């Protein structure tokens, strides 16, 4: 059994440090949403208090993440795919795993499609979608063939670049920032803030990766710390984004823009600077972030299948490519795509908002039972 186990968990010696785990989480959370967040949240909140909603959404994500971590810590060195069957029995556990695998590759398809939509619109007008998507997916395949460690290392390279470029571009827009656009604070009470909570909470999709990641950590007992750091950093990114976008374009202006964050960066010019189209910088780091999210979800799906069927992971990696491609090409229009994103969000709410808490309770009960029995 032991030898068998080693074969199917592609190299569990492949461990990552606590800081690497945090970087993986940050890169996973930051993805497609940052370009639309100001609009989707303002549409719901309708007041400039969106930034409070974002912070609250982050706090909720941290709570959900901690529950997930606590659940995973009950079963050291095992991923969710392995312990769920132990916890729920072969069939129920297996079914749940399949659902989660489905979620992961659907999400990776969504990321790929958003990538092709935005780069096709803003950067590479004449390049067909397949020519954008295919190299992207192949390089992703190449990366995840190496397992979790090369991924974590690549993300550690991407991360500082993203931070620097993001902050640079965000603060360059301070020239058109107007504080009055962000006032009044809590002018209409807290009701509007709560209206946007679901939207902003879903921006922090990502802590679910801890279902798997804890098993790869050198020090799994520090997983809560990973959640705290890994969610707070995207939270800062998001708060800066909504503050700068609303400050420049005003609540009324934000709702008219499909991609408000890109509109913001296109709305200013730095006099005396030779360079003009800063959005290309922003899009570059954004593509890197999408790539990170894509590879993590892709890997998580492949890992799930491999562990579920106790087979080598590589065939699953190859096999998922066409599936992801076909799902990515299914939405017919940009509205379909946005709807598709909402659907994934709702699924995530059920799978990772409600389910881990139930499972944690079940596992605690079981544990209690064992203890009384012995």
């Amino acid at each position, binding site marked *: 059994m032991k030898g068998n186990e080693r074969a199917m968990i592609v190299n569990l010696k492949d461990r990552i440090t606590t800081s690497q785990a945090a970087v993986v989480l940050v890169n996973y959370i930051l993805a497609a949403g940052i370009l639309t967040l100001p609009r989707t949240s303002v549409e719901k909140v309708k007041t400039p208090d969106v930034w409070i909603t974002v912070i609250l959404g982050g706090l909720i994500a941290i709570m959900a993440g901690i529950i997930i971590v606590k659940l995973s810590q009950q079963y050291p060195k095992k991923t969710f795919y392995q312990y769920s069957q132990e916890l729920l029995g072969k069939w129920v556990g297996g079914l749940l795993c399949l659902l989660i695998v489905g979620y992961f590759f659907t999400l990776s398809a969504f990321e790929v499609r958003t990538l092709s939509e935005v780069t096709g619109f803003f950067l590479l007008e004449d390049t067909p979608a397949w020519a954008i998507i295919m190299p992207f997916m192949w390089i992703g395949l190449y990366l995840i063939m190496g397992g979790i460690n090369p991924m974590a290392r690549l993300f550690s390279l991407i991360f500082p670049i993203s931070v620097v470029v993001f902050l640079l571009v965000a603060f360059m827009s301070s020239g058109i920032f107007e504080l009055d656009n962000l006032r009044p604070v809590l*002018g209409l009470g807290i009701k509007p803030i709560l209206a946007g909570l679901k939207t902003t909470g879903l921006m922090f999709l990502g802590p679910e990766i801890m279902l798997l990641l804890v098993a790869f950590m050198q020090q799994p007992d520090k997983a809560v710390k990973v959640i705290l750091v890994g969610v707070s950093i995207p939270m800062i990114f998001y708060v800066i984004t909504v503050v700068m976008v609303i400050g420049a374009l005003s609540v*009324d*202006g*934000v709702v008219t823009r499909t991609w408000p964050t890109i509109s913001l960066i296109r709305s200013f010019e730095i006099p005396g600077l030779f360079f003009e189209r800063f959005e290309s910088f922003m899009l570059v780091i954004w593509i890197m972030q999408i790539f990170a999210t894509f590879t993590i979800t892709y890997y998580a799906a492949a890992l799930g299948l491999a562990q579920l069927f106790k087979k080598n992971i590589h065939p699953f990696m190859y096999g998922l490519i066409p599936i992801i491609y076909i799902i990515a090409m299914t939405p017919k229009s940009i509205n379909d795509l946005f709807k598709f994103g909402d659907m994934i969000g709702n699924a995530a709410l059920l799978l990772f908002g409600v389910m881990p808490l139930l499972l944690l309770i079940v596992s605690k009960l079981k544990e209690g039972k064992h203890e009384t029995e012995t």
Partner: protein
Amino acid sequence: MKQRHKNVRLLFRFLSFLLLLTLTGCWSQREIEELGLVVGIALDLEKDKSLEEALERNENRYPDKALMTITNQLITSETTGAGKKEGKSQQKAYNNVSESGDAILPVLRNMVLRSDKHLFAQHLKVIVIGEDLARTVNLNQILDFFLRGQEVRPSSIILIAKNRASKTLESKEPAVIPALHLIQISKGQERTTKILPPISLGKLSGKLHSESSFLLQNVSTKNGEVKFEGASLIDGRAKKLRGFLNEKDLEGITWVTGKGKGGLVKSLDEKTGQLIIYEIESMKSKIRPHVVGNNISFEVNISSEGRIAENWVVSRKVSENEFLKRAEKVSKKEVERLVKNVLDKTQKEYQADVLGFGDRLRIEYPKVWENVKKDWDQTFSKIPIKYNVKLTITDYGTSVLNK
């Protein structure tokens, strides 16, 4: 076995040559020689009947739609070298192309029929809308294409032209690019109170969506020269041009909003009737709404520090405190006059809040604002507004006496 291994390696070696194909460059590349960089766009309403008929014959144009003429200012590889002083050629540094029709994009695409350049608007600087067009067509409709398209930069500045907009994109000097010239002028806001802070396309989309009235900078042409002259009042509901404010009104607006960065106040000394020029060093304005029951009122507190920059009053020691007080007082009166003038004009004549009073109410009394925002322009016209002006002269330059 070994032989097979070798073959596979050879195959990979050949395959790796395929990688060279990816080094040929970008898929969506465009050569800069083939681009026509659009730096300015002028939009005019066309009233010429014969042109209208000619167009209707040749194209599937809808007869009852407003006819526009669009003028693109292009910079191309041919024009960049031209217009320089050392070259003897009198070719202009820019190239204006005009075309007429009833919607923006079809017109722009019709330019393809005449031009060898690929129009490229990623570096667009300014959009000038002619007064007739702004008066008759909803600004949301005119600008829809520019806000929707991915190519036009939201950082481009919007101006309203008195009479024809296409005239503002022409210059007598071949070396000057009129669109860039307009941008340079709009930066003069630091030295005069007669220019509004520039409004970009990106900011405009918010203003158009908010239903509140606002101002756009005017530009006029005379003898082939452009000049920033007053502003246009855009109605928040109809989103059309309602009327003009002159330069003096603009001074008042700058004082009320406190958004000026510099400028002058010209006033007459009460005793001698001579000129005193006060130069603004800093300017602040605080609009305070008061709500008692259902009654809304506003209080505007304007304060400014500055210096005496020019003085025509003879044989007085400028440094004397008594004289400084006198100068402060007349300058203050002048500012009060400007403020009163613009308040009267916006409240009585136009009944439109373009001074940001509504915004202050929104910030300080959000719940009251929710109730009144629907008919705000109407409500605003009847609201009492008090104003206090405080000017302080901090110095008088390098000359103490004036003799």
